């Protein structure tokens, strides 16, 4: 909750996890083996390689589950490192690159989230991708992703973390651009890769600074030095902390680097669910959590930035979600906003709160994406203006979607409620009042846009042209499992009653026990709850009646064209003019405009300027300037040769004459000068 006094030490009662933790590396290797196997023989299998992927993920899931229970019962702290290179580091020191895995509360929690969501998404994808092109490659890339993500989560040192980090980026690139025949898709993939690569500069330079200063890449040694207050590390801590956070901003889609995430929706929906909602984008949050003692101690001055960026992100993300027509984009902006919550929570010192939201969000957002995928699968369109009234034709999808939406909106007792409350309580305790109220306001917006989406998609009348039908069982069963998670996932941390989650993730960082046992923070709970409920109610009032007209309203982009609607929905006026219109109209569009033109403009502008610069460098500088000198020298030599070769007639006697004349001149010169 608020800022806990932290000591970075191995907890006394924690076990080493026994053989289970010693061989946890199996989880890292299996997906990569599956990747290879699918590439080599996947095409020949009846399900084109999906069975290998699912099998691999099942192994990982079982293993992760076993680790998770073991950690829940006795606590595990275990690290394995295998040296892959060692080299001199100046002054007789040496440093090593290592592969390895760390098994502790944080990583076991992530293992479970990643493998569970991945397993369900893989199964779902069998149905979703049926009859699509390149299914084999699709599953191979998913395995590559799973392996890289496990590598990232398990990383005991920063180098392995970078490897996993960029590995998931590669998988993201491959999967966003899955339908690369369309240039827009491959461009979206490239955009995601570039934005992440820019952010990766931060991560890499931060790693360089920390590693050189601390003389090691191992995270726990760096953290231990930070805890001891090593002076050299202290001098660079804030810069390094900010640089690493910059890396996290890219992967976790924080303002202003969030622009890639909505475009990433070009990928197939299972990809969006797995990578761009539940797991990959939380890597940044995970990174900050992993380095949390560092941010809590030495790099504390970097934390206001984390809090600030997180807050901006959670607000603008939610606003943008209000005006989208593409259902996946609503969810994408929602993800941006929720990631903002997590990052802001960590920035405010709420280690557990941020991770708890990561945990619940993984369930309900994956659920929402997969359910949205089921809808898209049925109506062959991403646009909500071509949906509506689907609750009758897609009942199972509808009910699971409702569960996910309630969880996202933060309605008790679903998962999202508990974690959002935890975050708001963190803001409250940290004494950042402005952030707290922005968080509450955004909770309202979240509930509002979520139920706008629900109502536009499932209520009213159907406006599309396909014949919607419920998806096959292979797709709906994962939805139901995730729905269970979205309902029950929050019960693992109920303030004052059950603090299991708290104990699971704390294993390396010993918190103040009284804080753990603290009960509900009513000052945070009540505003949050009111905001969420009123958001749902407001959405109901605005979007529930006569959806046909609502759709028309939603598509009208000029605010002046609403008088008709005003007369028809007299009761809505207060909501509309008081709340919805200002936010949805100028404000959201303004944010959208800033997003599309200023930030994206900067991105595109940087691209255009770079291209112009490169044309100048190549055309003027290289070809004319530098090569001009080269050509000038050779041209001068050439023309001198051309002039001189007239002398070379090839007639021996002319040469001889020249020779004789020369000799005579010499003789004369000798005689005369004597």
């Amino acid at each position, binding site marked *: 909750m608020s800022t806990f006094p932290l000591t970075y030490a191995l907890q006394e009662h924690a076990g080493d996890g026994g053989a289970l933790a010693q061989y946890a590396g199996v989880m890292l290797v299996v997906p990569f083996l599956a990747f290879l196997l699918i590439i080599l023989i996947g095409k020949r299998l009846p399900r084109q390689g999906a069975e290998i992927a699912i099998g691999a993920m099942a192994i990982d899931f079982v293993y992760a589950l076993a680790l998770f229970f073991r950690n829940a019962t006795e606590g595990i702290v275990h690290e394995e490192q295998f040296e892959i290179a060692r080299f001199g580091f100046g002054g007789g020191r040496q440093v090593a690159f290592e592969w390895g895995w760390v098994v502790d509360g944080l990583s076991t929690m992530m293992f479970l989230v990643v493998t569970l969501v991945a397993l369900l998404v893989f199964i779902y994808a069998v149905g979703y991708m049926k009859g699509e092109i390149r299914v084999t490659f699709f599953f191979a890339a998913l395995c590559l992703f799973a392996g890289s993500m496990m590598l990232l989560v398990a990383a005991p040192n920063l180098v392995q973390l970078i490897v996993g980090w960029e590995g998931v980026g590669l998988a993201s690139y491959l999967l966003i*651009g899955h339908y690369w025949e*369309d240039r827009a898709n491959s461009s979206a993939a490239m955009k995601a890769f570039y934005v992440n690569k820019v952010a*990766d500069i931060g991560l890499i330079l931060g790693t360089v600074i920390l590693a050189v200063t601390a003389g090691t890449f191992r995270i726990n040694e760096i953290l231990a030095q930070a805890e001891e207050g090593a002076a050299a590390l202290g001098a660079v801590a804030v810069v390094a902390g900010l640089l690493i956070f910059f890396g996290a901003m890219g992967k976790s889609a924080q303002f202003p680097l969030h622009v890639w995430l909505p475009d990433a929706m070009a990928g197939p929906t299972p990809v969006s669910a797995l990578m761009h909602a539940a797991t990959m984008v939380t890597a940044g949050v995970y990174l900050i959590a992993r380095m949390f003692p560092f941010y809590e101690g030495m790099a504390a001055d970097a934390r206001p930035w984390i809090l600030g960026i997180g807050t901006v992100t959670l607000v603008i993300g939610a606003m943008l979600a209000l005006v989208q027509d593409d259902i996946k984009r609503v969810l994408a902006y929602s993800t941006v906003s929720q990631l903002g919550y997590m990052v802001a929570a960590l920035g405010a010192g709420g280690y557990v709160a941020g991770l708890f939201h990561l945990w619940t969000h993984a369930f309900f957002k994956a659920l929402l994406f997969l359910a949205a995928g089921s809808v898209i699968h049925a109506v062959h369109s991403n646009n909500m203006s071509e949906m509506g009234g689907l609750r009758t034709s897609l009942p199972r999808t509808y009910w699971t979607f409702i569960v996910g939406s309630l969880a996202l909106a933060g309605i008790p007792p679903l998962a999202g409620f508990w974690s959002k409350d935890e975050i708001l309580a963190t803001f409250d305790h940290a004494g950042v009042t402005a952030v707290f109220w922005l968080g509450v306001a955004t909770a309202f917006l979240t509930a509002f846009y979520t139920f706008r989406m629900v109502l536009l998609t499932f209520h009213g009348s159907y406006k599309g042209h396909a014949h919607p039908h419920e998806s096959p069982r292979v797709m709906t069963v994962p939805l139901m499992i995730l729905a269970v998670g979205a309902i029950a996932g929050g019960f693992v941390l109920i303030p004052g009653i059950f603090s299991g989650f708290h104990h699971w993730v704390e294993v390396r960082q010993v918190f103040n026990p009284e804080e753990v046992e603290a009960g509900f923070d009513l000052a945070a709970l009540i505003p949050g709850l009111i905001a969420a409920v009123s958001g749902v109610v407001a959405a109901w009032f605005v979007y529930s009646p006569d959806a046909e007209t609502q759709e028309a309203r939603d598509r009208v982009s000029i605010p002046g064209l609403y008088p008709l609607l005003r007369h028809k929905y007299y009761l809505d006026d207060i909501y509309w003019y008081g709340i919805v219109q200002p936010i949805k109209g100028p404000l959201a569009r303004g944010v959208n405009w800033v997003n599309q033109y200023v930030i994206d403009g900067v991105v595109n502008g940087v691209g255009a300027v770079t291209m112009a610069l490169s044309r100048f460098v190549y055309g003027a500088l290289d070809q004319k300037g530098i090569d001009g000198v080269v050509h000038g020298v*050779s041209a001068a030599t050439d023309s001198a040769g051309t002039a001189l070769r007239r002398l070379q007639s090839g007639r021996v006697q002319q040469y001889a004459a020249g020779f004789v004349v020369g000799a005579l001149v010499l003789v004369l010169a000798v005689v005369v000068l004597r």
Partner: protein
Amino acid sequence: MDLINDWGLTVTVFLPLVGALLIGLVPKANEMAAKSIALVISVLTFLLSAVLAARFDFGRSDQYQFSVDTTWIESIGARYHVGLDGISLPMLLLSTFIVVLCVIYSWNHWEEPRNPKGFLLLMLILATGMNGTFVALDLVLFFIFFELVLLPMYFLIGIWGDKTPRRIPGFARESETRLYAAIKFFLFTLFGSAFMLLGFLSLYFKSGEAGAKTFDIPALTELASTNPGLFAGRYGWLVFGALFLGFAVKVPMWPLHTWLPDAHTAAPTVGSVLLAAILLKLGSYGFIRIALPILPEPAHTWAPAIGVLAVIGIIYGSLACLAQTDMKRLIAFSSVGHMGFVMLGIATLTEVGINAAIIGMVAHGLITGLLFFLAGSMAHRYHTRDMSRLGGNQKLIPILGGILGFTVMASLGLPGLAGFWGEFMSLLGSYNPLESLSTDLFRVLMVFGAIGTVLTAGYMLWMLQRVNLGEPSEEWLGHEFHDVDRYELAAWLPLIILIVAVGVYPHLVLGATSDAVTTLVDNAFGPGSAVQAVLGG
């Protein structure tokens, strides 16, 4: 007497030359015989170098092993001195290995005017030059091998190269691209080599001031640390400048790079591969083997300039890539950027930096070699290298497209593949360069280098999008393209495996180099070394 210890290196170096002679005896019409001889000889050479690697004592990788040191040209004090240490071992293996792959690839890929006999003969001579440069421990011997490389490559480009006529600004006549490129390559390198030779001679005479005049590299290195003032000051500055010109042209460093895009564009596929994979390394290897240990104090003076030029090369090469339309030219410019990272590592004068340079050299050899193979094979199929006409390659030639995608990822420095370590360690080194160098300058260079990695990703993915993705243009409708054949696969798979292997287990390279580099840096720049003595005094 141990045959391998005493003769191993010498045979590794000269076996290809013997092969070249054998091929010379075969009638031109008998292509099969020429190919078989080339294959057998190159495989034998590689196996021999592998045996050397297996018997190499990694515990003393900082010492020269398998040394041979006998009199050669007594009147000028040049000796036949060869040896292998941790720095030259990876380079020698890379060289012998790539030649095997080139022979395999050549089996059924011939550029006009075909003539396998001549082509393979030149290639084997080239191999002797390359292997020799990496093991030579005598300046004259080094110079001869260094120059021996020029001639075969000149002919490979000039005879088998691209025949498109090209207008050269400033010249009245049009000339064929291959002739232009070959001559440019030759003259550029010769220009640098002339200065390099001057530098070598000057070292020879100067060494006489402290005993017998010598061309011996270990002896000169020893001299540099026992006599700190000898190769220092204005004299040292000039000599280093001369060596710099010789090596920097070969690397190539900005602004001496303009021969490279032309040579690569014009060269036949195998020529490009050898050029990128091995020839460029001769320059950076020269810096590590000769310039730094013998002239530590001038190296220290020059280091900031080298670092700045290296980073200009990184940024400049990347920007130039974005303006290319010709695929091979793009890859060539990418070499300028990648070798910039190698040189940045060397310029830091630290253990990390020089290790970075070596692993960067190996990785660049593997990756860019593979890229040129792929570009060549694509040009072979499409008969164009113009990226605006290509597109949808992944659809037309799927396996080749997949390999191209993999290689592009490796080239942009994806962690977990070979290219990453060089770039990463280079940045690691430049955060903390040698104490007495300007930390501020090198940290600025580090940031620009990091920006360079983004630009690299930019042009590489852009190339991938233009060449590999999208729908194929109408031009190729109805064409049947055969996918990767088994010779191509046999040449490329080892490279792919090695790229992954070095990426996952960089110990393969660093295990050999680490100790050698530590000793080198300690002797040259460590406490009590020449640099410290001169700077302190």
